[in-house]
């Protein structure tokens, strides 16, 4: 932390975060409120398609509301993975596995077509949405603890491989277990969230906007929670583990306990996003949970800046939104750019290039940036 410049006793504001922090408190709140309001207004007709001129932000080839919903789901996932990778420094390559657990738990509990009801009669009738959501989240958190318990005692790279295998295991089980998860035939008729206005359900089949607003609201709540955690004793423990696990242990930080916490909280957020996603799509099967998605979420966190919440939000948004936007732009210009085909290739390259030239990410966490710069000064012998 040596290169923070001191001028008149206060640190020079650097980057977006620095400038935001340098504002007066009401100014900061006004800025944040305006930004959040903008996000809420984005899918509305007059914003997305203003009469008279064209909005360059809108995706042409796919429904803007759906793209925003997908982006919001990715943002939520990136915030969750950021807790694990960014705060605690644990590389989890199977993060999408938790998304799958959350989605399946939600589907099994709430769908009338769930085999728990039709074949096994464990449940008499589908659970109400609001009752199933917390249960799905708790199940995912428990999965996180179960996976973390044996593996978090190990070194980081073993953890990476084991989590990679975990995601694959969930996928194999999803494909094979015709008897409960439905394999490739999947689970259908997953109900939408409850609520109606004037007799019309708020969350219908056609309009993605309410789902986007729901996830956006969840994101705001989760960001508050995670931000407060990061600034608490738990957050400081995570940073100490990330910087030097042995030193943290020697200073009396119960590292295993806090790593498990990070894992469980990350899993919870992953499960939450899976559950929300499942209740929008109505139907799911095993093909959704490929390894590529885990890597995409990781790319989002790294791109945005591991350890930084605004970075994770930005990264999650970019990873889901830019390919769609480019596809639309290509269609507008008369080119057929299949961005879904190339996006994993491009984000793979992004991971390599970012690690070499900007390991701290686009919107970095100041402390982590300083850690990386410190390390760069000690170059090994013989290179």
């Amino acid at each position, binding site marked *: 932390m040596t290169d923070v410049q001191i001028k008149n006793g206060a640190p020079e504001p650097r980057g977006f975060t620095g400038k935001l922090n340098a504002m007066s408190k009401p100014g900061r709140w006004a800025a944040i409120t305006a930004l959040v309001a903008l996000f809420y207004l984005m899918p509305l007709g007059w914003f997305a398609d203003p009469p008279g001129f064209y909005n360059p932000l809108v995706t042409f080839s796919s429904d803007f509301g759906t793209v925003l919903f997908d982006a919001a789901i990715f943002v939520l996932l990136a915030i969750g993975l950021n807790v694990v990778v960014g705060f605690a420094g644990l590389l989890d390559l199977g993060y999408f596995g938790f998304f799958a657990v959350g989605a399946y738990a939600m589907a099994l509990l709430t769908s009338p077509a769930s085999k728990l009801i039709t074949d096994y009669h464990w449940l008499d009738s589908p659970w109400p949405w609001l009752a199933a959501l917390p249960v799905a989240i708790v199940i995912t958190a428990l999965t996180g603890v179960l996976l973390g318990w044996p*593996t978090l005692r190990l070194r980081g790279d073993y953890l990476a*491989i084991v989590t990679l*295998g975990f995601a694959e295991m969930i996928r194999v089980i999803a494909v094979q277990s015709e008897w409960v998860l439905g394999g490739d035939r999947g689970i259908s008729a997953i109900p939408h969230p409850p609520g109606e206005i004037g007799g019309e359900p708020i969350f219908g089949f056609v309009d993605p906007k309410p789902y986007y607003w729901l996830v956006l609201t969840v994101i705001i709540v989760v960001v508050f929670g995670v931000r407060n955690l990061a600034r608490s004793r738990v957050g400081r423990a995570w940073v100490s583990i990330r910087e030097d696990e042995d030193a943290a242990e020697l200073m009396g930080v119960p590292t295993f306990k806090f790593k498990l916490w990070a894992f469980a909280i990350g899993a919870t957020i992953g499960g939450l996003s899976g559950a929300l996603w499942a209740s929008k799509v109505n139907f799911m099967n095993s093909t959704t949970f490929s390894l590529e998605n885990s890597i995409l979420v*990781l790319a989002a966190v790294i791109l945005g800046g591991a350890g930084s919440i605004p970075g994770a939000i930005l990264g999650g948004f970019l990873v889901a939104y830019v390919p769609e936007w480019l596809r639309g732009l290509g269609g507008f210009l008369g080119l057929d750019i299949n961005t879904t085909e190339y996006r994993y290739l491009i984000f793979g390259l992004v991971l390599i290039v970012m690690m070499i030239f900007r390991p701290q990410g686009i919107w970095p966490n100041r402390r982590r940036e300083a850690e990386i710069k410190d390390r760069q000064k000690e170059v090994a012998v*013989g290179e």
Partner: protein
Amino acid sequence: MDFSELFRNFPELTTTGLTQGAIYALVALGYTLVYGVLRLINFAHSEVFMVGTFAAMWTWNALGFNQNLSPSGVLISAGVLIAGLLAAVAVSSATAVAVELTAYRPLRKRNAPPLAFLISAIGASFVIMEIIGIATDRAPYGNMPELVSNKPLFTILGAEITPVQIVIVVGALVMLVGLDWFINNTRLGRGVRAVAQDPDSAALMGVNKGRVIGLVFLLGGVMAGVAAVFANLKYGFTKFNLGFLFGLKAFTAAVLGGIGNLRGAVLGGLLLGLVENYASALVGTQFRDLVAFVVLIAVLMFRPTGILGESLGRARA
């Protein structure tokens, strides 16, 4: 649990297990070599293997042989096989060295944290996988001639032995013994062991660390290339994401034997091949891919250093 299945097919399961294990062992050596020297899990190694399978297939096709036209005569078959082998070895080792130069070396220069290496490796792995995936439309590719017969040659204790199995097991053993000899008896091998023991001291004693690291990736690539051809012979097809599961299993093999330990990787590979076959006879073949994963977790929980212990440098200094 179907024990009768296991006992009835025990000899058969053993021979197929050993064949598969020999391929795992060859790939596992790549993980272990790099880990021994750099203390780094080379995630992209699975793709190094996958690229080799395609290089061999495409070479065979380029020579005019495909699933409808197999070479006739032992000599021509052997010649075509060796041409594919050379291509696979060349492409795999070139890929391995390219990964080292683009994804790892720049990070070492900057003394990046361990996490950065893993992320960069994932990136490299994805780039390679996607390039091949896009080139092949993500479809399985199985247009290969029959180079080694898959018909049973003779029977030992009820197990039918095919020429493919003999070629794979003997070929793998030759490679393993050769690598062991190279590491233990040559000047370059001594350099590898020195860097594995203590990189900084080795560098101070005049070992060119950069070159040793490059060599280690090259050797891993060679082994993966040979493994790729053997996998083609055994399975008859390949796919852009074939490397992922295979890599996970080979890595499990390396950890099972003790990562960083060459002989351990071989032992781990063979054991894993056997365990996988026996277990899938017990619990059903659809869960065969989960066996390796369960073994990995069990080893990491109860004996993280593996059977023979972790270390290329310490084991036979």
